[in-house]
């Protein structure tokens, strides 16, 4: 049976969690994969915790549910760690990628009882340096692709440049490449 990869992105309204899951799915479509990607709709407003999902598989699949047991969790905002159960439903041996400024040891403190691989990326810093604003969504995707190559980085850069035309696309591509190289276990 072909493996379906479920990705959940936890973020805050306005940080681009929805855009991130969409672009990840579009990159997968570009490679000829099959996807089902959607945000969890509710009363969203800027700053509120939001989740969005991408389900990616190289073969057609028919599941049409929200992602309850993700393989990979991407946490765009570290302030969510104490607030939302970001590990909820995560599969055994799953992957967590967290935007975190401190040391990786202090990040692991949050996930003491969780059997999963924890990766850290200074997404906010990279986003501020490369883009000038705190929009670390694409940075996090860059880190995700290093850890779990669900799609190729080139495909993601291509759809990102289509979505964000001109300078912003270039900057995002650069930030993604940097994140791809800087993610640490």
């Amino acid at each position, binding site marked *: 049976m072909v493996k379906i990869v479920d990705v959940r992105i936890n973020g805050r309204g306005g940080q681009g969690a929805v855009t991130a899951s969409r672009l990840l799915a579009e990159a997968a479509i570009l490679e000829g*994969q099959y*996807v089902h*990607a959607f945000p969890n*709709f509710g009363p969203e407003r800027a700053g509120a915790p939001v989740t969005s999902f991408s389900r990616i598989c190289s073969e057609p699949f028919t599941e*049409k549910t929200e992602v309850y047991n993700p393989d990979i969790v991407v946490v765009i905002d570290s302030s969510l760690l104490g607030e939302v159960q970001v590990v909820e439903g995560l599969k055994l041996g799953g992957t967590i990628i967290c935007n975190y400024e401190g040391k990786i040891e202090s990040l692991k403190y949050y996930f003491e009882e969780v059997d999963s691989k924890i990766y850290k990326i200074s997404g906010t810093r990279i986003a501020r340096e490369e883009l000038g604003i705190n929009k670390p969504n694409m940075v996090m995707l860059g880190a995700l692709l290093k850890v779990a190559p669900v799609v190729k980085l080139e495909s993601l850069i291509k759809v990102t440049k289509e979505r964000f035309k001109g300078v912003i696309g270039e900057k995002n591509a650069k930030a993604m490449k940097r994140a791809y190289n800087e993610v640490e276990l």
Partner: protein
Amino acid sequence: MINPIVKGMTGDEAVAWAAKQINPDVIAAYPITPQTIIVERFSDYVNDGLVDTSYIPVESEHSAMSACVGASATGARVFTATASAGLALMYEILYVASGMRLPIVLAVANRAFSAPINIHGECTDQMVCRDASWISLFGETAQEAYDETIMSFKIGENPEIMLPTMFGIEGFIVTHALERVDTLPDKAVKDFLGDKRVIPPCCTFNPFAVGTFGSLVLQDNYMELKRQQEEAMHKAYYVTKNVMAEFSEISGRNYEIIEKYKLEDAEYAFVSYGATAGNAKAVVDRLREKGEKVGTLKIRLYRPYPASDIYEALKGIKAVSVLDRSATFGSPATIAQGDLAAALYGKEDVPTLHGYINGLGGRVLLLPEIEQIYEQSKNYHEEGKALTQDWIGYRR
């Protein structure tokens, strides 16, 4: 078969894209909640000059359908979209559209009714309109949403039919979810539909064939006119079959009015419609791996109801679980189960029917729950219960 152009689109965007390729003459829609992205995206196309449609933003869904009726009576090709409470507000005019035999196409994002206020997926809104003499289709994926938009025009505009068509895709789980959609080139869509609608001469406002519409018809002729609708509905079954066959040829995707999945040697089966069918198929795959003989049947065309096809598909199966994502209260059976029971009644070798109301207000029917349904229906069958009705996926 025409080579597809692969795009990543949500269900709403797929419908809007199909509508753009069809380039209807008029779209009238109410642009506020519970409206969907379909008309929002289409208004972009109008603004960018990609279509020649006149776009009428009206003040309510009642007016939206009324404007569609007026526009369609002139012979224009008309499209609109709505959801839940909006469809309920249209309800009165739905009967006008079908009674005047106007082939309007309506995209429904199936969402729950208030109260309590909810905007998530559930098919009750379209199900309550099943008796409005509208041809009614359900779509499972964004791909089907795209294809059914195109097919709906072809079915309704057939001169033998001349009935409005609605097709439903479930709110959020299909309408707002990004999926891979294989689209046709613009020219292929145009060729498939033909340039102009074929209109009987009396049935249009134009200077050469004037007539009176919507006149008072009392006991003398009313029943004859309603019976004509029933006969057109009967023909629509065959026309839909042909249109789907024709579309399968150009698109390379196999469309039938019902979709059978691993039913050939099945002893137990699920019957469902819309996105739930996708989950049922996934569960069938899981159960088949365990060695269970199970299949699933998806009803794509709900009105006219393909009773004989369904009987042929379900003949010899022991028990059928009907996964019904629409609410009915105090009813002897769930909505889809009731229709299914009527289609099978008195025939030989029919399965026992077990209806499950699920997924109301966007609640997700989880795959383990469907497996649980399977086990339960098996027990019911062994206990000899012919017709049972349950709710699943709620807390006690």
